[in-house]
């Protein structure tokens, strides 16, 4: 029977080892690197220890860092939009009509398609000032063609539209799951009390969906902070840094400017923000008792 006592530990050992080696250790090493000046070319022990210099220069002197943060704040503006649209779409997809599954799958398709592929289709096929579909449609309607990704004022909104489009189906499905959990009795009771469709929405649906909405809010915000693929593929940070995001700037700093220390510092700052949001998410989940399984 001693074999059995050890079994859980033996079975878990490789998995725990993996987590330590590829998650915990890199996390700790990342903190360590953020206190160094390291180009990545020399061995780590030759790097110089610079205490909080990377953080200081990042927060006080690095304009591009703040530009990236401002851009992320702009991306975060898309969050209420995506929530509102997602809710609306979920209501639409909740209708009992024939073939509704096809429509649900359609909105979900971009979510499971490679981000690179979609970004390229939008960049080269839709947003291209000459050969893109959007400007062609505008031209045919007699409206002036737009520069889209080539203009600092339009590039970020353009990417934002693309991202909202890509994720809307997924968000709608999340809301859909929530909607379908609301018992029909509640609506029936409301009808008996003489409630209109709008009243039902306001007094039955919304309150019961509150935990889902809050959850999605935090999920989407955390996701918005980590955007990389779309700006990398579509604009490489955009005309005049207008589409620069933090993860993208970290990629430049680490692998093009060879300043790994500063990149690590950036990562830690971003992680702190996300960590705070995640704690918030857990608190929200606990409070509303929402474990749907």
């Amino acid at each position, binding site marked *: 029977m001693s074999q059995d006592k050890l079994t*859980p530990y033996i079975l878990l050992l490789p*998995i725990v080892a993996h987590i330590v080696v590829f998650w915990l250790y890199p996390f700790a090493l990342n903190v360590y690197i953020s206190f160094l000046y390291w180009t990545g070319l020399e061995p*780590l022990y030759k790097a110089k220890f610079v205490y909080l210099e990377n953080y200081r220069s990042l927060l006080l002197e690095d304009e591009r860092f703040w530009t990236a943060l401002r851009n992320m704040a702009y991306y975060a503006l898309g969050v209420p939009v995506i929530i509102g649209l997602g809710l609306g779409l979920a209501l639409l997809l909740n209708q009992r009509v024939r073939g509704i*599954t096809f*429509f649900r799958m359609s909105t979900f398709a971009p979510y499971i*398609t490679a981000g690179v592929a979609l970004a390229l289709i939008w960049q080269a096929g839709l947003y291209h000032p000459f*050969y893109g579909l959007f400007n062609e449609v505008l031209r045919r309607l007699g409206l002036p063609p737009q520069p889209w990704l080539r203009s600092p004022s339009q590039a970020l909104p353009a990417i934002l539209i693309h991202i909202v489009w890509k994720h809307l189906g997924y968000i709608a499905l999340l809301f859909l799951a929530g909607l379908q959990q609301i018992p029909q009795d509640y609506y029936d009771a409301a009808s008996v009390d003489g409630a209109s469709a709008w009243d039902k929405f306001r007094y039955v649906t919304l309150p019961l969906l509150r935990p889902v909405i809050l959850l999605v809010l935090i999920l989407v915000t955390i996701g918005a902070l980590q955007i990389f693929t779309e700006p990398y593929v579509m604009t490489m940070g955009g005309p005049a840094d207008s589409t620069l995001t933090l993860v993208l700037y970290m990629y430049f700093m680490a692998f093009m400017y060879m300043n790994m220390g500063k990149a*690590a510092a950036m990562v830690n700052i971003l992680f702190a923000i996300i960590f705070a949001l995640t704690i918030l998410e857990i608190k929200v989940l606990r409070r509303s008792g*929402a*474990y749907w399984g």
Partner: protein
Amino acid sequence: MRGFKLLVYALLAIVALAYWFPYAWMVLSSFKTTEEILTLPIRILPRSLYVYNYVFLVTEFPFLNAYINSLVIASLTTILVIFTSTLAGYVLAKLEFKGRDVLFMLVLAMQMIPFFVTIIPNYKLIASLGLLNTYWAVIIPSMVSPFGIFLMRQFMLTIPDDLLDAARVDGCTELEVLFRVVFPLCKPAWIVLGVTTFIASWNDFLWPLLVLRKKEMYTVPLLLNLLGVAAGDPRYYGVLMAGNTLGTIPTLIIGALAFRRIVEGMRFTGLKM
């Protein structure tokens, strides 16, 4: 009520159009010649099924290679993730031992660490081990998934203990209980986990971008990015669209077939994916 239904269908049609038109444009463009692409005003439909874009794609770019790379990496990752998640999930759900809750908290905590935090050190680690430009560089860091462990643990909690006790009484060792009794029950959870892992692995961009540096080793998203860069030259525009078409087919098919399961998985784990 007729009016309402009509409205619903109208809105749905608009939604469907909004979601399919980029794909339609992609496929249509993939069959256009360079001339057609470069002449304004743009025609919606290609004049004929110009397949040379696809031919060019496969002969001039290592597209088949990329497909195979993606396939191998995604499949191996999925298998390993299913294996490790089931193992860990079972142990955390069904076996009693000291430190079990602490370990589970650890797994949950890992889910909170976003990927980019570990990029630089993981990159250094993989480089140090000489694994750059290999499949393993992509597979090994992803082969244990906290999300997968969480999913399988939740699933295991739904398996009645009596089943396991009966097997133990019959004289099975723990390992045998796991392999002979638990595994066969896991199929539904495996489908959910497998599909989501496969799709995520196929679509992964940043990490393979860092560790796969030779064209022959590129996965499909990496190759598409290369095509995108080349498509600064309009002659490659049609080829880019051809590449996108071929590259997006697998995940779309899998997504369509396993749609119900994916949705179930989303509900099951508290709406995370």
